[in-house]
């Protein structure tokens, strides 16, 4: 973004609301080490797009698609280069922007009004998202019980009808623990998002440990020394491989050992 417009007669790069735009926006560079933090600040592709638009004081209705797309792609490329876990939604949006851009290059028949401007759908989504973003912020500013709102909690003198302390039995406790563990079981894949272990990498390892001509015992694929996280990742990798038809599972009798082999 260092090009300088010719000194004599500056040729506008674009017109924004009828005003000539002489210089490219200056605020597009972000140091790479700040990018990770920066990306966490975004709630998704729409949020990133809104940011790009707002940074240039543009109206949503006036998006220069070509320029915004270029900027958006630059972020996506950076994210890829830094191998940040890029949510699929960012790529979907990239594809959508690219499509809009290419459609806008096609000459549009003047009389045919029924075909919508390719930007319209995007603008509608941006606008709807922005409205929610605004009220979400306002909601975050509202006073809350325990922060700015303090209901009165006045005591009742002893022996006259004070609130009894809630009773808890051992059964309650046990049931609560069972519920937690039962749910933790269901939510395992959420916990491992933070683990440094990748399911993809483990899929490769599991696959490499298997042969198409011989069955391996299921339990041999797990290394208890890796702890809970490792066992879960291996398990997910096996499920994923199974789903993709890359391996086969066999169990000859109920409760019998499970065997795995690579699909032929």
């Amino acid at each position: 973004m260092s090009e300088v417009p010719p000194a004599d007669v500056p040729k506008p790069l674009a017109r924004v609301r009828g005003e000539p735009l002489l210089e490219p926006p200056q605020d597009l560079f972000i140091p790479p080490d700040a990018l990770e933090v920066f990306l966490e600040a975004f709630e998704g592709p729409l949020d990133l797009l809104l940011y790009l638009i707002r940074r240039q004081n543009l109206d949503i209705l006036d998006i220069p698609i070509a320029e915004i797309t270029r900027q958006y792609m630059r972020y996506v490329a950076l994210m890829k280069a830094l191998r940040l876990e890029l949510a699929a939604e960012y790529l979907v949006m990239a594809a959508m922007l690219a499509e809009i851009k290419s459609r806008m290059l096609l000459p549009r028949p003047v009389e045919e009004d029924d075909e919508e401007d390719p930007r319209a759908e995007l603008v509608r989504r941006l606008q709807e998202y922005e409205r929610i973003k605004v009220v979400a912020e306002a909601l975050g500013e509202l006073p809350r019980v325990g922060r700015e709102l303090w209901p009165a909690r006045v005591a009742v003198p002893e022996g006259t009808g004070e609130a009894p302390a809630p009773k808890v039995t051992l059964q309650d406790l046990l049931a609560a623990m069972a519920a937690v563990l039962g749910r933790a079981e269901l939510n395992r894949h959420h916990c491992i998002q933070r683990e440094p272990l990748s399911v993809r990498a483990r899929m490769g390892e599991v696959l490499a440990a298997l042969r198409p001509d011989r069955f391996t015992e299921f339990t041999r694929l797990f290394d208890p020394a890796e702890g809970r996280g490792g066992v879960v990742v291996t398990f997910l990798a096996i499920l994923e491989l199974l789903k993709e038809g890359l391996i086969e599972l066999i169990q000859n009798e109920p409760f019998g050992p499970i065997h795995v082999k690579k699909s032929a």
Partner: protein
Amino acid sequence: MTRDDIAKVLEAALMASDRPLSLDALRRLFDEPAPARDELCAALEGLREAYAERAVELVEVASGYRFQVRRPWAARVARLWEEKPPRYSRALLETLALIAYRQPITRGEIEEIRGVAVSSQIMRTLLERGWVRVVGHREVPGRPALYATTRAFLDHFGLARLEELPPLPEVKDLEQLETRLAEVVEPRETAPQALEEARDATA
């Protein structure tokens, strides 16, 4: 029971209760025949005035009446506890806002508007806090749950009804949109360049 006694019972109960009390709940504090609703309302109004000069005030929230600390003194009270409850994440607030302003709404619809997946943790947090509940199912394949906000949600934010939520910004006229879009001059660029970028993006 005199008028003043009625007011005293209400005052004592509202001060001691750990949740807001509705008119019905307040009526049940009395033996039959309990005071009529308008008697209760008059007594509540009297209480509100009696506390005009105090550090607490009688307010109405979604599920009833409660005494709470007046705002100017609230920050001081927060010092009683070491930790301040954290601010909510933007993801949680946006999800909550969509449920509040677009209820009833499915998780899929929330994801569509936000453009990203909604984490199960957020939905669980909202359900567990009792701010959101399932009010039915959309009759489409998969019968996804429809979410709506609860009175507890309004209570928590000190509101009596949904209309008291901050207003949604107005939508810009979509009919204008096409004309406005047509006016925007795209910077000139060559077709091959654009296509290349498009290819990069989708690669």
